[in-house]
């Protein structure tokens, strides 16, 4: 019994010592690289902020305590808030908190533009969301007189079909796209949209984060809060 305990203790200590050395080395490297990584992130955020601000000037960054919203900028024009740019985070293919998005909303929660920043999505699948054109399917949604921001592929397909019947822009391509989705993923069934590929998980993640941002603007910052 004593021998067994001794073996277990020695094995545990050896494993612990390897882990401890690794932790110290990584801690030291983190100390060296952290300032550079932070500077890179600030540079990336400033670039995205400049791209997203179509009119007005961004005010100071305000940090908030929220599950999805990390911080926001108020965009002012003639002393009036014209939009809000939010720093959002959500769950992607890399797990919770790995999807960082910057999005510009009108005061009633309508999405004007969005950019995917840091992420751990799969190259070739979810990573396609980095392309600015990817966000087009979420634009002009979420506002008072607009359809809600789609959080599933089925919702997007349904909205596209409605757009077509209402006779809005991009009639043909929109219907073709919707039909392609149905052909590729099968006919939508409620609650059956989980974990098909990295692409669908990313779509769900991006849609949910943007929808949460819209709700935040509506309830805490925009028109309903005047």
């Amino acid at each position, binding site marked *: 019994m004593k021998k067994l305990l001794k073996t277990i203790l020695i094995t545990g200590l050896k494993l612990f010592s390897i882990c401890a050395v690794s932790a110290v080395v990584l801690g030291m490297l983190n100390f060296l690289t952290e300032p550079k990584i932070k500077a890179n992130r600030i540079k990336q955020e400033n670039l995205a902020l400049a791209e997203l601000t179509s009119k007005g000037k961004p005010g100071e960054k305000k940090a908030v305590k929220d599950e999805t919203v990390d911080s926001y900028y108020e965009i002012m024009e003639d002393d009036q808030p014209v939009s809000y740019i939010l720093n959002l985070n959500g769950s992607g293919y890399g797990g919770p908190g790995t999807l960082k998005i910057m999005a510009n909303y009108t005061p009633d929660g309508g999405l004007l533009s969005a950019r995917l920043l840091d992420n*751990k999505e799969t190259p070739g699948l979810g990573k396609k969301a980095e392309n600015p054109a990817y966000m087009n399917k979420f634009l002009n949604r979420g506002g008072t007189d607009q359809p809600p921001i789609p959080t599933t592929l089925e919702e997007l397909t349904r909205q596209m079909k409605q757009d077509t019947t209402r006779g809005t822009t991009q009639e043909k391509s929109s219907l073709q796209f919707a039909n392609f989705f149905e052909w590729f993923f099968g006919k939508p069934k409620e609650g059956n949209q989980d974990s098909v590929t990295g692409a669908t998980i990313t779509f769900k993640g991006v849609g949910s984060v943007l929808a949460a941002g819209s709700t935040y603007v509506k309830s805490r910052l925009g028109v309903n809060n005047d």
Partner: protein
Amino acid sequence: MIKEFTKGIIKENPLFIIVLGLCPALAVSTEVINAIGMGAGVIFVLLGSNICVSLLKNFIPEKVRIPCYIVIIASFVTIVEMVMEAYTPDLYKNLGIFVSLIVVNCVILGRAEAFASKNSVGRSILDALGMGIGFTLGLLLIAIIREVLGSGTITLFPIKAIKFNGKLTLGWLNKNSLKVFAFASGALLVMGYLKAFFNWMEQRLTRIKQQELENEELEKKEPGEKKSKDNMEKVS
């Protein structure tokens, strides 16, 4: 000793012969720059983990050897991640989740378990370099074929000094690219053809070696018999 280095490049190439680490290899081989970055990361992690495992082979208890190897490998991967994120943020962004996934790359754990834990540091370094370079060359080959045919470009690192933006555009191919090679199906197609080529080459080499061995044996056994056989052939 030099065999430990050269075996990983063609004879035991991790991608085309042993067929290890295919998932990240196929996923990141859309651009040449990704292949270079991923290859460099794998060489570094392979080298570091092989050295550490070989040095600690008498210290690591047999029963917890796999967790120990994983801690060592994960530490090196985290080092690669931090350095990449700090100094090559664009490449880090492109490689995405596959940098973290080097931890579970079978090439690395496989070499730690099958080679470094049983051999000296010197041999382990040569093995790591050979396998790492073999993996990188394999990745580069797939990436060059895919990018040239699929996009008509070759993406490398930008060099400010000579005003090179990092992208070589291949005129006609750029306008008439075969898009399938840029997609996942193209990766599998290229991999399939390259694997078939390597199989053919391996079989050919084995046949040549066997023939040489047979000839040598025949010469050693009965040189007189061979002469008489030649004479008989001449007479006939």
